[in-house]
C-alpha cells in the first residue's frame, strides 16, 4: 500500500507542489474576498473556469495553434505563454469584478443578511457556468499544445517536466507579487484597513466600493493565473471543472486559515501534497474523502485553521 508512495516519493512530491501552487492561487480568490467581506466568494470556482477559456482562446484563436500543430519554441513560446497568462488573468479578473457588481454590491449597500448574499452568489455562479455550458455545447475543450512537455532532468529518480517547473516558479512569483501588493501598496493598505474595521476605514476616507472591487479584481487575477497553469498542465477544460477545483481550493483556504494570505499559501501546498499522497496510497477515489477528514480534524483541534485568521485577531 505504501510501496507506491515510497517508490515514487519525489515525483509525487513535485506533482503535489505544482498542484498545490494552483490551489494557492485559487484560494487567494476566496481568502482575499473573505478577508474583506467575511463572505465566501461562492462564484470563485466559475471565475476560475472562465479563466481557463482565456488561455485557450489566446493560443487557439489568436495564435492559431491546434492540437496537432508544432509546439512553439524560444521567443515565440514565451510570447504565447505570457499572453495566455495575461489573458486568463484579465478574463478572470473582469469576471470577478462583474460578480461583485451584480451579486454583491447592491446587497452590501442594503446591509442584508449574509445568506441572501450567499444565495445571490450561488445564482451568479449558476449563470456563469450555464452560459459557458451553452457556449461550448457541454463538451470538453482540448487545449492546443503550445508547450512541449519535455523532461528537463531527473532528480532522485523523479522526472522534472518543463510544465511543472514553469507552474511552480511562475506561480510562486505571482503569489509573491500579490502578497507584496497587499502588504506594501497604498491600495493594499486600504484593503487591510477595510478588513480590520470597515467603519473606521470609511471614516479615514477609504473609498469602500473601490476597495472591495479591487479586492475582487486581485482575487480574480490570482484565480486567472491558476486557470492558466491548470490548462498548461492538464491541457483541457470543461464548463464544470470549476466545482472540484473550487472546492479543493476553498478547503485549502480554510485549512490555512481563511482571510489570511500566508495561510492560503501553506494551506494550498499542504492540500496539493496531501491529495497526491492520498491518491497514491488509497487510490484516487478516496482522495477527496481523505482531504475532508483531515480538514475536519484540523478544524477540531485548531478551529481557525492552521495559521489562524490573521486579520480576524486584530479585530476587537
Amino acid at each position, binding site marked *: 500500500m505504501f510501496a507506491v508512495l515510497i517508490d515514487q516519493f519525489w515525483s509525487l512530491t513535485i506533482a503535489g507542489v505544482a498542484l498545490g501552487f494552483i490551489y494557492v492561487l485559487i484560494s487567494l480568490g476566496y481568502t482575499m474576498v473573505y478577508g474583506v467581506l467575511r463572505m465566501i466568494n461562492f462564484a470563485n470556482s466559475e471565475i476560475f473556469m472562465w479563466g481557463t477559456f482565456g488561455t485557450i482562446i489566446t493560443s487557439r484563436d489568436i495564435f492559431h495553434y491546434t492540437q496537432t500543430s508544432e509546439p512553439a519554441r524560444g521567443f515565440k513560446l514565451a510570447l504565447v505563454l505570457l499572453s495566455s497568462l495575461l489573458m486568463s488573468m484579465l478574463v478572470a479578473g473582469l469576471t470577478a469584478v462583474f460578480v461583485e457588481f451584480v451579486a454583491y454590491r447592491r446587497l452590501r449597500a442594503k446591509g442584508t443578511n449574509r445568506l441572501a448574499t450567499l444565495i445571490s452568489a450561488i445564482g451568479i455562479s449558476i449563470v456563469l457556468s450555464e452560459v459557458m455550458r451553452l457556449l461550448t455545447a457541454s463538451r470538453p475543450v482540448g487545449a492546443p499544445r503550445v508547450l512541449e512537455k519535455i523532461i528537463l532532468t531527473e532528480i532522485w529518480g523523479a522526472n522534472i517536466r518543463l510544465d511543472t517547473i514553469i507552474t511552480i516558479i511562475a506561480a510562486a512569483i505571482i503569489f509573491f507579487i500579490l502578497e507584496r501588493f497587499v502588504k506594501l501598496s497604498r491600495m493594499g493598505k486600504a484593503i487591510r484597513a477595510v478588513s480590520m474595521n470597515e467603519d473606521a476605514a470609511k471614516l479615514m476616507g477609504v473609498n469602500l466600493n473601490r476597495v472591495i472591487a479591487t479586492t475582487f479584481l486581485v482575487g480574480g487575477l490570482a484565480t486567472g493565473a491558476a486557470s492558466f497553469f491548470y490548462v498548461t498542465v492538464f491541457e483541457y477544460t470543461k464548463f464544470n471543472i470549476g466545482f472540484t477545483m473550487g472546492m479543493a481550493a476553498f478547503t485549502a483556504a480554510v485549512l490555512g486559515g481563511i482571510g489570511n494570505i500566508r495561510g492560503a499559501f501553506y494551506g494550498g501546498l499542504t492540500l496539493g501534497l496531501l491529495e497526491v499522497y492520498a491518491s497514491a496510497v488509497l487510490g484516487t477515489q478516496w482522495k477527496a474523502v481523505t482531504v475532508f477528514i483531515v480538514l475536519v480534524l484540523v478544524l477540531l483541534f485548531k478551529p*481557525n485553521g492552521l495559521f489562524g485568521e490573521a486579520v480576524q485577531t486584530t479585530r476587537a
Partner: protein
Amino acid sequence: MKMRNYWNLRDWGAGIWERANRPKRVAIAITTIFLVALLPFAGASFLATPIAAYDAVLVYPVGVFILMALGLNIVVGKSGMLDLGYVAFFAIGAYTMALMGTHTGLNTWEIMPFGIAFAMLAGVLLGLPTLRLRGDYLAIVTLGFGEIVRLVVLNSTWSKGPNGIANIPMPPDIGPLKFKLDDQKVFFWVVVIMILLTIWMIRRLSVRRPGRAWEAIRQDEDAAELMGIPTLKYKIWSFTLGAAVGGAAGVLFASKNLFIAPEMFTLNVSILILACVVFGGIGNIWGVVLGAAILGYLPERIRFISDARLLVFGLVLVTVMNFRPDGLLPRKKREKAIVKKEVNA
C-alpha cells in the same frame, strides 16, 4: 389612512389569521389542506409541466423539496447554523430504504423509523465534534460531510457503487389507495401529510423551550450561553431534528423513485435546498414552503426552454435576492431586527 403595502403578503396573511377566531381558523386550515390535496387533479390546466409527468413533479421535486427545506429551516432558519451538507441526511434515508427494502422483507412504513433513526444518529455523530465551530467553518465541514457520504456510497461495494440500487419496493397499499408509478396522487398525499406533521412539530417546538433556545442562539450565541442555555445541546438537537426530516424525505424518495444512485445526492441538492429556504424567507415556515414550491416547480415548468432553464433559474435567484433580500415571505420584523446587528458585529 395608511397606504396598504400590497407586497407585504406576510402581514396580510398573518392579519387574516390573527383576526380569525378558532372555528374560522379551523375552516381556513381545512380548506387550504383540501385545496392542496386536490392539486394533482389540476394537471390539465396551465400548471401542467411539459415532458415530466405533472403528478410526479408534485411529489419530487416539489413535495420532497418542501419537506427538506422545512427540515433545513430548523437548522439554518431557527438556530442560525449554516449547513451546506444537508443532502447527506437525505442520502442516508434513501440508502437505508434501498438496502433494507431490497435485503429484508420490511415495507416502507416499517423502514421509515430506521431511516429517520440512522439520519439522526449521523446528525449526532457529525454534530458532537463540529457544532463547536461557527459560521463558515461549520459550512465547510458540513459540506465536506455531504461529499464524504456521497463518495463513500460511490466507492463501496455494498452500495453497488455508481450503478446505484434498483428494484426498491414501493410502499404497500393503504386500503383502497394504491401506490402506482404512472399515477402518483397517493404519494403526493403522503408527502402532504409528512409536511403537515413537520410544520406541526416546528410550530410546537418554536413556542417551547427548544424554540426559544434556538432563537437566542441565533441572535447571540455568547449571550445565550451566559444566560445559562446549554447551547451545544440545543444546537445538536436542532441539527438532529433537521436530519430526521431529511432522512424521512430520503426514505420516501427512494420508495417513490424505485432506483437511487450516488449522482442524485450531490452538493447541488444541498445548495438547492438552501436556496429554497433563503429564497422563500429564511426562518418563516410559509416562506420556506413557498420558496421550495417555486424552486422545485419552476425548472420543470420551463422545461420547454430546456437548455437554458438552469440559466433562467440562476438569473431568478440573483434578481430575487437583489430585490427581496429577506426572501419572498420574510420572517417577522421583531425577529429580524437583531440579526441586522449581528452583521455589523
